[in-house]
């Protein structure tokens, strides 16, 4: 990510560019709005296949197919016809060009095994729908911080860093029902906690139904 040292201002050319993937038109419209309010550029597509196409990963156009607008974050729905968000996640994480892009999974169902598989495959977070503005603001803020601290040493070592107190700093009246292996980008690799992941995740899950 190229934003080391620069503070992102809204409206500036250094806005985060987020690729949102969801087969529901309603959800795309909502996530687009949430992201725009959080000062991001948004590209919203309806399927995993379209997302790969946009990224230039579909093999059809070759590396020149990528439209040049760098993607800083991908937010994808889990349940989609054709390619699920999980499958999309795997494809992205297995690509050398795009594996560093944080991928957030959104789902209306908080199934523990599903959450675990996504986090195992390298998802940054698993958000339970409906997604709130506070979730998006927190995510995009973390993304910015991550860009600033990544700088020279490049790759983050492990995506499953725990930062339980993330939510105490988010605004809003109701707590975010997300499950997070947070960005925790300003952590030193030596501070990594890779387990116990499960107990803290469960504590944060809220039953939406």
């Amino acid at each position: 990510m190229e934003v080391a040292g620069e503070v992102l201002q809204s409206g500036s050319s250094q806005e985060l560019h987020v690729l949102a993937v969801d087969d529901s038109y309603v959800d795309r419209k909502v996530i687009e709005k949430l992201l725009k309010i959080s000062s991001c550029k948004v590209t919203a597509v309806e399927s995993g296949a379209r997302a790969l196409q946009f990224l230039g990963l579909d093999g059809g156009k070759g590396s020149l197919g990528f439209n040049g607008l760098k993607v800083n974050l991908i937010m994808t729905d889990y349940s989609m016809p054709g390619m699920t968000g999980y499958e999309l996640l795997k494809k992205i994480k297995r690509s050398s060009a795009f594996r560093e892009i944080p991928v957030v999974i959104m789902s209306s169902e908080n199934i523990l095994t599903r959450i675990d598989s996504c986090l195992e495959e390298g998802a940054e977070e698993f958000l339970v729908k409906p997604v709130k503005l506070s979730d998006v603001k927190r995510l995009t803020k973390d993304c910015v911080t991550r860009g600033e601290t990544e700088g020279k040493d490049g790759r983050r070592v492990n995506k499953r860093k725990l930062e339980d107190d993330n939510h105490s700093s988010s605004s809003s009246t109701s707590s975010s029902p997300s499950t997070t292996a947070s960005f925790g980008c300003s952590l030193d690799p030596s501070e990594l906690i890779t387990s116990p992941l499960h107990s803290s995740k469960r504590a944060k899950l809220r039953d939406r139904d």
Partner: protein
Amino acid sequence: MNIVNQLQRQFIDFSTSLHREGFVDDQFTQLQKLQDENSPDFVVEVVSLFFEDCEKLINNMARALEQTQGVDFKQVDASVHQLKGSSSSIGAMRVKNACIAFRSFCEAQNREGCLRCLQQVTHEYSLLKNKLQTLFTLEQQILAAGGSIPVVD
């Protein structure tokens, strides 16, 4: 009380009743808060998309349940799941709850139960449509009278 205040009072009362009666939940309020001068019709647009979605999905469910050779419950469930998702996204609580009940009948492969649920979902959808149309009309009246739409938390 001048006309703007009267209309605003009506709006607040109506909004409150929508929440109290469970037609909408906090997610709807969240959407209203997202509306700004850049997108003054945001809520109306999203709600319209939702209603289009409703109609399409309800038709899909009806068709699938009509199959005399054997109902594909997975197909019905897929549509219910989608409707549950979008109703949740806009805060259409009663529609969402009707979908939740519907899914268990799909799982049980109970055609009669599904048909009853389909009726319920259709009913909730048309109730909500009327309610929201009233709400949007009130908003327009307030704006036309030169007032601003109150934020109801």
